[in-house]
């Protein structure tokens, strides 16, 4: 029998019928929780829920599953993979104490790395609900998650970018033009990753070959990815396609992932298949996952949980398969889940914090759609905050405008802004390449070359005379 939670504030008594309800009511406001009907009914009720949550022992989350163990393979993954030894140093804490401990000088980067396998997504989500934005930033910055394939992502003082050269008809010259633009602005160390306009195996293989040829010809220490369904990529591997990273959108409940058309065994198969190709040079992290608050509710698979708790559970899925990159696509889903710039900002910081605390290499698609109450200023704010928080990577797209997916994310210029004001650098191997290729005049001050570097000047001579575009 699940426990209920009671408390009295002044003359009012409050009752929370379950742990899931307590978590939901303690969540900072956002439209998706209102849509799901789980949001706090008043500002006071929210803070009261946070106070009750603060008193709960962390062990509560090991004894009471938010989605039953029998019903959900993500719950089984979380419970079965929980490391009791790693948990020991924090096992006596309440959620409120856990916040204090995370902020304290006891919780160094080394200590946080040791306890991460003892932290469950629900513990991370619970403590995040008590934290202010600056707490989320400070603790995330202490958590270091480093991964590698052809370069090393997530080192302190580094900020990588995914070069996203999407085109509405997958036109190869159009894609190549955006890739060149990005490389010449120093973008692409996290991955060169294309969302295909036509989502099938043949098209994906074509785009994989395109990127592989570019990476090989210019000897770029980076990796490529076509963001197609995991089963398409598995088929591409069988056909002998040059697959660096396997992509999949993931959610925090089994039912969400089933609606996406895969389960945990599919991901295990994909990781093994990509590793068998041995295409990495400095590391073997071969998975690229995308997540985002609201996906479980959108798939009608949230089991009455708040959307941020569902999201944190997705990171349990991610960390099982040793990803190179995990990207929370925070503002893409629309205003029915995150209404405005304030809600998007909060969610981005929560996701980055929870992911890093659990040991996941978090990056963020700092983004919004045109029907959300958000604009470039909101994105500047979140980008800056995430840069301070030590975010592993962001997107890079020409002029912030994704002409295929119809939304706005961070541009090549934005990434250079963040690197410049925060003193951040590209991944080390990629940074060396940028210098060798003379893309920068002075890379230490982020000063770009005014002239076209020789290797690329030569390529431009091969431009077709007749633009196919139009």
């Amino acid at each position, binding site marked *: 029998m699940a426990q209920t939670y009671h408390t009295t504030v002044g003359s009012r008594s409050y009752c929370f019928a379950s742990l899931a309800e307590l978590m939901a009511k303690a969540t900072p406001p956002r439209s998706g929780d209102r849509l799901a009907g789980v949001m706090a009914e008043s500002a006071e009720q929210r803070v009261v829920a946070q106070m009750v949550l603060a008193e709960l022992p962390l062990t509560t989350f090991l004894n009471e599953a938010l989605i039953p163990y029998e019903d959900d393979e993500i719950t089984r993954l979380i419970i079965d993979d929980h490391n009791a030894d790693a948990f020991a140093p924090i096992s006596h804490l309440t959620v409120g104490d856990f916040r204090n401990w995370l902020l304290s000088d006891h919780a160094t980067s080394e200590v946080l790395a040791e306890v991460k396998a003892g932290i469950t997504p629900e513990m991370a989500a619970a403590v995040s609900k008590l934290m202010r934005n600056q707490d989320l930033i400070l603790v995330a910055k202490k958590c270091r998650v480093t991964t590698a394939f052809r370069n090393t992502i997530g080192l302190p003082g580094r900020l990588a970018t995914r070069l996203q050269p999407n085109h509405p008809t997958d036109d190869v010259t159009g894609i190549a033009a955006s890739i*060149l633009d990005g490389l010449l602005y120093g973008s692409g160390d996290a991955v060169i990753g294309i969302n295909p306009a036509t989502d099938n195996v043949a098209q994906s293989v074509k785009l994989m070959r395109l990127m592989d040829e570019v990476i090989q010809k210019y000897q770029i220490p980076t990796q490529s990815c076509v963001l197609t369904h995991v089963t398409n990529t598995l088929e591409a591997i069988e056909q002998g396609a040059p697959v660096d990273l396997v992509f999949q959108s993931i959610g925090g409940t089994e039912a969400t992932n089933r609606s996406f058309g895969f389960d945990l065994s599919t991901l295990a198969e994909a990781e093994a298949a990509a590793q068998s190709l041995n295409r990495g040079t400095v590391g073997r992290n071969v998975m690229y996952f995308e997540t985002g608050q609201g996906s479980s509710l959108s798939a009608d698979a949230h089991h009455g949980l708040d959307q941020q708790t569902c999201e944190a559970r997705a990171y349990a899925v991610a960390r099982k398969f040793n990803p190179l990159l995990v990207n929370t696509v925070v503002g893409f889903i629309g205003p029915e889940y995150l209404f405005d710039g304030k809600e998007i900002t909060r969610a981005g910081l929560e996701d980055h914090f929870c992911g890093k605390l659990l040991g996941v290499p978090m990056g963020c698609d700092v983004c919004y759609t045109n029907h959300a109450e958000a604009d470039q200023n909101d994105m500047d704010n979140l980008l800056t905050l995430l840069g301070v928080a030590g975010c592993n990577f962001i997107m890079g797209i020409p002029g912030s405008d994704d002409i295929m997916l*119809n939304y706005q994310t961070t541009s090549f210029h934005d990434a250079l802004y963040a690197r410049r004001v925060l003193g951040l650098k590209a991944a080390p191997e990629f940074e060396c390449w940028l210098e060798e290729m003379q893309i920068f005049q002075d890379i230490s001050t982020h000063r770009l070359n005014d002239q076209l570097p020789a290797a690329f000047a030569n390529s431009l001579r091969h431009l077709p005379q007749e633009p196919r575009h139009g």
Partner: protein
Amino acid sequence: MVDKPTSPIVVENPWERLNAFTDARIGLGRAGVSLPTSKLLAFQLAHAQAQDAVHTPLDVDALASELTAALDLSEAPIRLHSHAQDRAMYLQRPDYGRRLNDETRECLQQAAASQQRFDLAVVIVDGLSALAVQQNSAPFLSTLYQMLGSDAADWQLAPLTIVEQGRVAIGDEIGALLNAEAVLVMIGERPGLSSPDSLGLYMTWAPQPGLKDDRRNCISNVRPAGLQIEEAARRFFLLLKEARQLKVSGVKLKDRSEDDVLEGDAAPSSIRNFLVAD
């Protein structure tokens, strides 16, 4: 003393001419590492237009008269409204946008009281871009009605409806109330920065409330600079005929009109591009 700068304040990109090959905002140039003022303002204008497309209400009167004239309708289109009262509610409660409000549901029930069966109900919905609906509805339907009229088979059309504050699924309720075998929803799509006027077409066979996306077929990006009206109408008509023959829609009914293009694209030679030309 400040040294006179040796390089220009705004540095143009020597690869700017690649612009001819994509609508992506490449070769923008830079002031330091930041956007030059002209490019910044061009972006702001595009974003402002996209936001206006979301928030400008559909001029139903103007659209209704335009359609009545263009399609030579004997009765004006029926005006309907979703359960979402206004745009703010619409944006936050997609569930409200998927069902009719009580008042207009009754109105539609009365209009459909004859129990007559129809082959197709066309439902025009503002969606996230009234601009798309305002601009593209009449040209598209003129083309489609011509195709239906000159087809060998007979097509009985239900009364045309126009819905305010609606989402795609509201068409299924309307199609069911009108006793239609199939429903076509024409809806304003979420505006992109360079496409504030994009219309989406959704078809359901045997519409009824509560159906999911897997029962619908979609044709997207219908606008002057995207998928042309003629081609969109041709594709839709093919789908509709196929649906009528097989009595299904959605994932069980593939859009075959693009198959040739896909096979052509998959040819290994087609990855050639200027970056890897030699």
